[in-house]
């Protein structure tokens, strides 16, 4: 999927995450993580994001993550939504993601 604009999803509330996806051609995937549980789960969060982007076939993106302690499934869902918004696609095919 190609990132054509800035897309965002999520909130800054406790146990949620706000993810902003920006275009980053041709610099590949870059992640700026800011998490209240970075010491404990930083690596895990990076892995979830990389894996999800791979699924979505996103090659170039600058991902800003403002994490307030969200679970992996929440991070994944927020990221998928943000990527679709950034790609300018309105209809999300959740089955493909599974």
């Amino acid at each position, binding site marked *: 999927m190609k990132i054509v*604009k*800035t897309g*965002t999803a999520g909130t*800054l*509330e406790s146990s949620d995450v*706000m993810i902003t996806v920006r275009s980053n051609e041709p610099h590949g995937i870059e992640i700026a993580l*800011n998490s209240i549980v970075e010491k404990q789960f930083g690596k895990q969060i990076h892995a979830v994001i990389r894996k999800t982007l791979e699924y979505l076939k996103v090659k170039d993106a600058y991902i*800003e993550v*403002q994490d*307030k302690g969200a679970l992996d499934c929440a991070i994944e869902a927020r990221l998928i939504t943000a990527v679709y918004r950034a790609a300018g696609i309105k209809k999300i095919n959740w089955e493909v993601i599974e």
Partner: protein
Amino acid sequence: MIERMIRNHTAQTIQDCREVLETQNIRWESDITYSIIIYNSIDDSYTNPIATGSFSGSVIKCVAVTPLFEGVGLAQRIITLLLEELYERETEHIFLFTRPKNIQSFRELGFHPTAVVDDTITLMEQNQRGLQNFCEGLKKQAITSDRKGPVSCLVMNCNPFTNGHRYIIEQASEKSSVLYVFIVTEDSSEFPTDVRIELIRKGTQDLKNVKIFEGGEYIISRNTFPTYFLKSQKIIDQAYAQLDALIFAEHIAPALGIEKRFVGNEPFCPVTDNYNTQLAQILPQYGITLEVIDRLEYEHSAVSASEVRRLFVQQDYGQIAKIVPETTLSFLRSDRAQYIREIIQRRSSKRDEEIKS
């Protein structure tokens, strides 16, 4: 608790915002275009406001939570709602100005400090790479020339382009190898940014070592500079000049290799004169020299854009022709320019009303 989104303020909604802001010693700003208020009422009515936040253009401002409700996540909620609305409007760069002591709080809300002036003011941005990207964009458009002299820069508004502006650009370009002219982007000018840039480009086409840039969000306009948390006019002017000079000297000038900045002298405007004084103090610390150019006079007074606007309303093209280039004159005579006359008229009559009241 009930959340309220306000696109058009009424006297009552402004009063509600003020009530919250006053508990944190923050003033209301009149250019606000959108606000959120959170009320704490038992019957879900719009009474007892406890938190608020607003924006104007791409700048988030006037965010406050009453002391009693601090620490329960209301600020997060307010910022989330404001960001949602700003993204809805496809705002690419989102900024806020705050006291440096609040940097940590806003960092946790996803903002990054772009420039910090001592303990007075800091500019924070939601996109961590915003300024970096802007500077890389400038680098790609850099030009070179065979002329001798420093790489220089001018920052102008040109509302609209006059012989006075032409004179300053000419003088500066003669003394430079390359001259970059940044045009302040601001919607508050009577002549829209794209028109101002078009007129400057047309009026300086013959000067081969001159490159015109749209200033963008990083050449901060005085008119959009928020002041609601600064105490006095003197502190405001100082903070504005320092922040603007800092971003210029630390980021924009190095990106283009700028060694010199020219300014027009300001015999009549104490605010701009003070700004020039601040620049003269700050820029040399970064190895940039400042040179003042005397303004062009016509019949014993400086050629001014406000005079052109006044004559334009009166449709006195004969007088205008004496102080603007042919390119600007023909634009002012064209159909395209007529709606701008209405804007100027509306503004000046509004100003008159304000003076009367």
